[in-house]
């Protein structure tokens, strides 16, 4: 398990350098990231493919309406893992994707091993309760999913009549169910991360969560086919290309943002590895014929993917339309470049730099894709056991200088302006739902979450400026213990330059969904579909290999999936 500081051995040290954090880590810029081959879902499916993983379904006890229980088991790295799935009737009045929900269509636990009868009894009592249940260290993940009602019903009905679902609907929605929470790492008694932190194939960031989601996606396919089979005498199964295209949806709210602020070294590792991968690709002197051919194929697929990406939000749709135009322009200009001349990939990257930031990020994903042999090893950097650290021996003068050098983005904010402190982030007592408040309108700002990094850095800067420059941080903190968190963050940025989102998250203009999209892109989510400035729906594992096709040769070829491509 690695944690990569800017001076770590093993960092890429020749050729083109990484992009600058002050360019990449702005909130609006991280809100333009796309999934790429180091995204966690890709890491998982590569591991499953490498191992020739086989998914078994030892339990399938469902009634005609699809209510009952199922167990799926898969072995990875020498350990068996089982998804326990429970499906129940849900009153539509209670169907909500929010944390405040009390009941769901389906609930799940990923069990470490194969559950016996006693485990199953305990899980069947607790899993449907989700946050109100209680779990043991043998459970790795807890999750739930609700049906995309129209889509699920449409597919069930079509299959029951021996027909395939409407492709336009499949393209537009792209999944049968949406997960609304995926819990791991000790929540509600689940296993702490250290239980699996050294296991082959599953130790990377969020790999157990990804495994659970991939299995849930397969369950959603099986469930709709089961219901169809019970309804019709001549029912059909999902056509393989539709099955492969159908992913699993996810609804995400504000909780992801405090996670990013609370795990700065993880954030650094994710961005650092992606930026290192890009620098490696840009530094290739001679592009291989195969990689150029693959890239051209990806340009074509990327165009069709963008055409199939449709959302209701007008601003988002405008951005997608812009991306489509830019991709056309880029493809024309890329075609004019001779791959035989040196540094072909870097030349393409430089062309992308004349386009929007969102297109540049789209292009990063395209550029990385044909170069698995060069970049896939970086996936081992995604997790970190390192916590943020304090250097108590640093002098106040040195720390002040570091703030001047690295935190202009925080020091330049005018916090006297009301708008710059309009938002406050908090956790509601109502099922601990993360929420955002207006400081000048709503109650609760006295309990705001400590994610106001820029504000705290300014406070630290002012206090340090009035301190004895020769005193150590240890001595400084004797007088100002309330600044310990800010000192720690400031010192960490020096070693981990991608660890901070370089913006003011309290500003009235801050868009929380930018942070959500950042994290979701590292998960590998696609088809970002904003429902407000703080709520987003996405698709996961769309185009991913299914239980049946995980061993196929093309199992890792699903960046920017298109329905027709999997025929």
């Amino acid at each position, binding site marked *: 398990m690695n944690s990569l500081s800017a001076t770590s051995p093993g960092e890429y040290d020749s050729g083109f350098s990484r992009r600058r954090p002050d360019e990449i880590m702005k909130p609006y810029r991280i809100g333009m990231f796309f999934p790429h081959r180091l995204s966690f879902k890709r890491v998982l499916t590569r591991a499953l493919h490498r191992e020739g993983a086989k998914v078994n379904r030892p339990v399938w006890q469902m009634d005609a309406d699809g209510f009952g229980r199922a167990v799926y088991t898969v072995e990875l790295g020498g350990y068996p893992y089982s998804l326990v799935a429970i499906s129940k009737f849900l009153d*539509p*009045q209670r*169907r*909500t*994707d*929010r944390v405040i929900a009390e009941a769901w269509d389906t609930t799940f636990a990923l069990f470490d091993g194969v559950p016996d009868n006693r485990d199953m009894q*305990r899980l069947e*009592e*607790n899993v449907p*309760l989700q946050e*109100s*249940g*209680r779990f043991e*260290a043998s459970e790795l993940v807890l999750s739930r999913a609700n049906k*995309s*009602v*129209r889509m699920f019903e449409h597919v069930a009905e079509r299959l029951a009549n021996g027909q395939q679902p409407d492709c336009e609907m499949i393209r537009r929605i792209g999944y049968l169910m*949406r997960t609304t929470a995926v819990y791991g790492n*000790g*929540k509600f*008694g689940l*296993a*702490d*991360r250290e239980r699996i932190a050294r296991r082959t194939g599953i130790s990377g960031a969020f790999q157990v969560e990804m495994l659970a989601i991939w299995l849930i996606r397969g369950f959603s396919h099986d469930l709709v086919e089961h219901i169809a089979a019970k309804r019709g005498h001549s029912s059909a199964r999902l056509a393989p290309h539709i099955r492969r295209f159908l992913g699993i949806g996810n*609804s995400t*709210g*504000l909780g992801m943002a405090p996670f990013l602020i609370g795990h700065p070294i993880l954030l650094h590792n994710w961005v650092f590895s992606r930026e290192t991968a890009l620098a490696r690709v840009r530094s290739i002197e001679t592009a291989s014929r195969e990689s150029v051919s693959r890239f051209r194929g990806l340009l074509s697929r990327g165009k069709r993917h963008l055409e199939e990406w449709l959302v209701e939000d007008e601003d988002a749709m405008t951005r997608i339309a812009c991306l489509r135009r830019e991709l056309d322009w880029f493809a024309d200009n890329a075609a004019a470049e001779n791959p035989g001349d040196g540094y072909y990939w870097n030349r393409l990257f430089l062309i992308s730099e004349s386009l929007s930031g969102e297109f540049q990020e789209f292009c990063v994903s395209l550029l990385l894709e044909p170069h698995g042999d060069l970049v896939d090893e970086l996936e081992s950097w995604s997790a970190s056991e390192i*916590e943020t*650290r*304090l250097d*108590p*021996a640093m002098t106040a003068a040195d720390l002040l200088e570091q703030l001047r050098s690295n935190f202009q983005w925080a020091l330049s904010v005018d916090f006297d302006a009301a708008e710059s402190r309009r938002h406050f982030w*908090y*956790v509601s*007592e*109502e099922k*601990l*739902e*993360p*929420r955002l408040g207006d400081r000048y309108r*709503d*109650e*609760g700002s006295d*309990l705001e979450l400590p994610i106001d990094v820029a504000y705290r850095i300014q406070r630290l800067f002012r206090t340090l400026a009035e301190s004895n420059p020769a005193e*150590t*941080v*240890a*001595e400084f*903190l*004797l*007088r100002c*213990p*309330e600044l*310990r*968190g800010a*000192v*720690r963050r400031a010192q960490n940025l020096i070693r981990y330059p991608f660890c901070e989102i370089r913006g003011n998250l309290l500003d009235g203009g801050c868009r929380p969904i930018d942070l959500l999209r950042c994290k979701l892109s590292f998960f590998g989510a696609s088809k970002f579909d904003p*429902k407000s400035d*703080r*709520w987003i729906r996405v698709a996961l594992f769309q185009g991913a290999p299914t239980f049946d096709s995980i061993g196929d040769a093309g199992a890792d070829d699903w960046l920017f999936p298109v329905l027709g491509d999997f025929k």
Partner: protein
Amino acid sequence: MAFSGAWRFQVRYSFNEIETTMRKAALGLGWPDGIAEQFGRAAAYLERRGIRSIEPILAVLEQGKSPARPIIVSETAVIPERSGFSAIAAFDLLAARVVRHVELTDPCNLDALIGLAGVAAKEFSCGFLLKPTRDSLVRVYENRVYRPDIQNIPSGSVSATLLPRRESLPEVAERHDVNSAAWHRSLELASLTLVPTTDASRRLGAGAGLRDND
């Protein structure tokens, strides 16, 4: 945090739950977030070493927040204040080599001190030697604690010095029971960080509607 699940097994909390709860309990009592983080990590450190953490950490949290005002003479700092700040300051001063010895004349309880020393050992890549009495020594490293039978150590002043880092594989104990009263008190304190819900916050705060039947 109440849970209504039906279970017929001993409730044992994960290390992460304990860390999070104790950090939030500290925040609920008004400790600064950087310090609260230290307490949370200390609780998890103790639990992983098989030392019960909830009561000792809770005791420190509720002792009050007197700032540490060390008296530094030559290479020794004497810290008279009985407060979590004092313990944290002691390890900071040692790791920064501001002093070579720290005397905590009225320390918080020894287990909490060990937890905070363990966190500091990890954070500063070093070890700490704690001397609760003349004859008993406790050596605290990132992954291990070496101590005599704790029952025989009387309360009183504790001196601390820096040790070189010692590499070892993490020692991770099984989960064990927690003191129910102390745990519930911690949860109660943690809940002080939560904002009461209102109809407006329910409707507007999350940026999403209340039904998803599409």
